[in-house]
């Protein structure tokens, strides 16, 4: 079994201060950490690997032992985050770094990571599951994971809190997915991409063997040329259509979401109930054509 975990080195947001006068973020001297959601992803991957190893040991004389590959795109200093991931117990690490990746938005990042994962697949065997955190704490977009899944044309399972079962024969995976006010139980086929929400796991403390290996192992470093991709315009600033126009703190949503009972009702019936609920809570909308057509 081969699992790839995408991580990102981010500034420790608990230690970031906002400049009292200019209102800009003071990044100077702020320590970096692995994005906390990525640690849930990494731990889930390590657990799956270890569980798989145990199962194999029971049935096979020569267990193949699963492998966890961590990958990150970032400046050369992101190697620290990879080394830390190795200390936790990951088997190998790939750093995707090149000046030409600088200024990437989520579109360009997911393209570069998808290329890197494809190359990891060529080199070390195709991954069965790819993990990412549900989002990073510095960008907060939650777009890179789904972006990678789309580019690799595989299933995407977002906001997962637990991978409950893997069936290697049927190539399927069962997961629990966080919903507002509930949990969704999903079965999906592999390979797939899982973005982890605050899971039920806590990152382990790597063993002394893992940390010794991490301290001494070399980290694979790939640039644009190593990825063997022709469409270099899709990398970095050139491949990034996103423009930041303004940064502001949004006011939090005051209202809770509402769930309607749908079992044993026709779609039309559910739609009517929904519209009725909306018009009773939003009187301004009551006069609009939508409510009339529903009536």
């Amino acid at each position, binding site marked *: 079994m081969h699992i790839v975990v995408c991580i990102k080195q981010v500034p420790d947001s608990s230690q970031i201060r906002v400049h009292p006068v200019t209102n800009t973020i003071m990044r100077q001297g702020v320590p970096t950490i692995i994005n906390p959601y990525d640690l849930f992803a990494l731990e889930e991957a390590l657990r799956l690997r270890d569980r798989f190893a145990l199962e194999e040991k029971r049935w096979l004389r020569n267990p193949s032992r699963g492998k966890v590959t961590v990958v990150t795109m970032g400046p050369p200093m992101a190697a620290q985050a990879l080394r830390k991931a190795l*200390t936790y117990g990951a088997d190998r690490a790939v750093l995707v770094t090149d000046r030409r990746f600088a200024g990437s938005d989520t579109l360009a990042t997911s393209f570069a990571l998808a290329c890197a994962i494809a190359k990891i697949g060529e080199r070390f065997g195709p991954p069965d599951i790819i993990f990412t955190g549900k989002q990073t704490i510095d960008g907060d977009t939650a777009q890179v994971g789904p972006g990678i899944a789309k580019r690799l044309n595989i299933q995407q399972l977002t906001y997962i809190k637990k991978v409950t079962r893997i069936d290697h024969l049927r190539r399927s995976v069962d997961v629990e997915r966080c919903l507002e006010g509930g949990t969704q139980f999903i079965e999906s086929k592999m390979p797939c991409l899982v973005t982890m929400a605050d899971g039920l796991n806590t990152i382990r*403390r*790597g*063993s*002394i*063997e893992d*940390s*010794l290996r991490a*301290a*001494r192992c070399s980290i694979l470093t790939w640039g644009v040329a190593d990825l063997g991709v022709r469409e270099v315009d899709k990398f970095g600033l050139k491949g990034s259509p996103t423009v930041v126009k303004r940064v502001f703190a949004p006011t939090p949503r005051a209202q809770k979401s509402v769930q309607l009972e749908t079992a044993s009702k026709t779609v039309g019936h559910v739609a009517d109930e929904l519209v009725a609920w909306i018009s009773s809570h939003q009187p301004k909308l009551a006069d609009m054509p939508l409510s009339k057509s529903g009536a």
Partner: protein
Amino acid sequence: MSRERFDAIVVGAGMSGNAAAYTMASRGLKVLQLERGEYPGSKNVQGAILYANMLEGIVPNFRDDAPLERHLVEQRLWIMDDTSHSGMHYRSHDFNEQRANRYTIVRVQFDKWFAGKVREAGGTILCETTATKLARDGSGNVIGVHTDRAGRPILADVVVLAEGVNGVLGTRMGLRDVPKSQNVALAVKEMHFLPEHVIAERFGLTGDQGCVIEALGTISRGVAGLGFLYTNRDSVSLGIGCLVSGLAESMESPHTLLNGFKCHPSIKPLLAGSEVKEYAAHLIPEGGFRAIPELHGEGWVVVGDAAQLNNAVHREGSNLAMTSGQIAGEAICTIKNQGRPMTKDNLSLYKSMLDKSFVMRDLIKHKDVPALLHTNSQSLFSTYPKLISQAAQGFVRVDGSTKIEKEKAAIDAFIKARSRWGLVSDAVRIARAWR
């Protein structure tokens, strides 16, 4: 599969540990260094002044890339009462030399650099890993360390304990006692950030020049202690260290003393407008020669603060730490090259080399001073500073009383405070301790 074995394990990545690890790694030994902090330097606290000469002996071209703040051109010693200070300043253009003698440093950055040198030399450093126990063989010889991570103990021919003043590994394993309260000072310090040009103006500095102020007197409320202020590039390190036994007796809290020092009319204007971004506290070994524990045993040596190697009189510690680490490293390399085992007898080479160095010679010279500071703290740190301040003010203030009256008043004040016999005996005691 045979188990991996290191030539040496160094516990701790401070000054002494880095010096030892670098010395051995650069001579081709297979070295593992353990550091409990997130990275080397993350747990380390010092004023801090770097003594270039000793580092030069270890990393000759350190000036090329080490993170140095300012080279020191001026030293001020202030004797303070509550409203004034009498100072002795020494400033020399000679200190603006190519290879300056002393630099201010910020340990968090410096230790990262030093550990980087260890890695370059081929040493392996494990951070966030605490050595919890020494591993011993059947006859009690140290053969490695247990850590707080899962797994078997790591094996090595020799363990270098560079775990700092409060090193629990050595005390837990019974290699030495927990430091006594009269033999350690607790120093608290803050980093005050100021623009580079403001520091230059306030202290009369240009370029990379730096200045040190050391202050004693009523700021420590009669406890044996010392205030300090070091200029970094764009910050000022300010703190006060006092003997723990004195703090315990007087029930003074370190942060109150630090606040008093900061608010002293002589210090306050130097800090005006600064932003405090960091505070830290640390123990300093002050027991001197008489507090030094056993330095070597079967399969282990102890270096730096853990070995209490600190010159309280000259406020030198990091240089003794570096040199002791270097000497331990050299001794281990010598024994290794001769193909001899790391027994207590063979490791006595470290002790004998250390005895010949400035480290032990300086500590022996001042062996009686720590006790003197401890027992005479009230007169040395409160009575005399007040008397000196009064005398200085009497000398400077012009108020119509005659000079004869003023001088007599000053002398009378000294006699009244300490008696004639007391003055003579204080002088003799200080002279004898210093000798």
